[in-house]
């Protein structure tokens, strides 16, 4: 399985965020996205997760399930925890377990087929199963959100600053889970400053260009809606 991104260009709110980003990543590899803050790392992750429309460029997954889009192969672990305070930890987790469609692929054997309570145990928050999420601490909430990746097997993990709000111990658990996901043939695309000691780790370095004018997109449309497919 290989994810191919070809000259992705992203614009949000009329502002050019990044352009011509090209990379490929195949199963069993991790891609660490690095660069100064505000340069567009999160936007790239959201583009891959299909949450942000791409202005131009193509994204394709070789070896995935034919009739499913790329995002349907992904888990997205962003800044927000997506937890409902009035629901208990178990209710939150079992909802996501029955809502997300698991992905079975050759060459991707994942142990992320845990039951909701087992996932809570592995992340040492089993005791909070029947507590409303509102009572959980930030770190516990973060681990509850992380548990979502363990209850439904999906090959691609998209993680935006996964180690934020985690203490040292939880960071080790996180690293362990990421390592086992990679070794199981999964893909991780993460924007993080965490030193990730994994065998095949690639780095995607974001940088401000040299300021040359971009002839690619017709410049008259600067500030206007998507003109790409109209031309």
């Amino acid at each position, binding site marked *: 399985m290989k994810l191919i991104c070809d000259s992705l260009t992203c614009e949000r709110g009329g502002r050019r965020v990044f352009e011509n980003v090209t990379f490929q990543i195949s199963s069993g590899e991790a891609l660490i996205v690095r660069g100064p803050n505000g340069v567009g790392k999160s936007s790239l992750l959201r583009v891959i*997760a*299909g949450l942000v429309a791409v202005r131009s460029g193509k994204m394709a997954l070789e070896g995935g399930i034919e009739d499913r889009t790329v*995002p*349907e192969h*992904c888990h*997205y672990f962003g800044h927000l925890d*997506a937890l409902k305070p009035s*629901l208990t930890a178990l209710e939150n987790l*079992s909802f996501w377990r029955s*809502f997300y469609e698991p992905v079975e692929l050759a060459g991707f054997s994942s142990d992320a087929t845990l039951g909701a309570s087992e996932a809570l145990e592995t992340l040492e928050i089993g005791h909070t199963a029947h507590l409303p999420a509102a009572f959980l601490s930030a770190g516990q909430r973060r681990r509850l959100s992380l548990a979502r990746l363990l209850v439904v097997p999906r090959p691609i993990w998209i993680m935006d600053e996964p180690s934020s709000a985690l203490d040292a111990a939880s960071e080790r658990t996180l690293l362990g889970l990421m390592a086992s996901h990679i070794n199981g043939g999964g893909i991780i695309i993460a924007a993080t400053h965490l030193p990730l000691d994994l065998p095949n780790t690639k780095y995607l370095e974001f940088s401000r260009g040299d300021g040359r004018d971009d002839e690619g997109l017709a410049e008259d449309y600067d500030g206007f809606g998507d003109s790409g497919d109209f031309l």
Partner: protein
Amino acid sequence: MNWMTALFVREFKIAARVGGGALIGVLFFLAVVTVFPFGVGPDLKMLARIGAAVLWIGALLATLLGLDRLFQADREDGTLDLLLMSGRPPELIVLVKCAAHWAATGLPLVISAPVLALFVNLEPTAIGAVTLTLLVGTPALTLIGAVGAGVTVSLRRGGVLLSILVIPLAIPVLIFGVSAATAAVGGPTPFLTPLLYLCAISLFALVLGPVAAGAALRVASD
């Protein structure tokens, strides 16, 4: 448990729980209905004439009240991103959320309508008619309101704007709802015609609402 029932159960639980908003709709409905006689006067004959309209307007406002949090709460805590990303068709997600919202806020309005009808001195047949029209009409209010909620999801205080956008679209529901209810008590027109129009609008909204709201959510996602 397939994903739709899981979503429905979750949405219903959130709405039914203490901070949810299910009961607030009914309290607001009660408040609106009780405020009318203070304005119009306690004359029972007059109240009987406008009773159906009072209940319908109360139900419309109560439904609009709870709608702006339909998608906004999910957007703020990141759930909306995950729902849209999951690959489930947004139209069905909207439909299930509307069903849960109706079950949690719309249905209680219908159940409480007969009780509140006593305040406006409606006789039994009229109470039955109003409740039936509300039962058939409130889903259309929720589904049309979902379009307004979807379009204003990214706005900070979208609630007021939502009502302004939705009320013109809800006028046909109000017209046929009230006229069906009053016709049951022997108005000039037969009871069935407006009721069937109301059902038609509800079925139409069943399609238009989710499709338009789903498109609006996709647009607001980045």
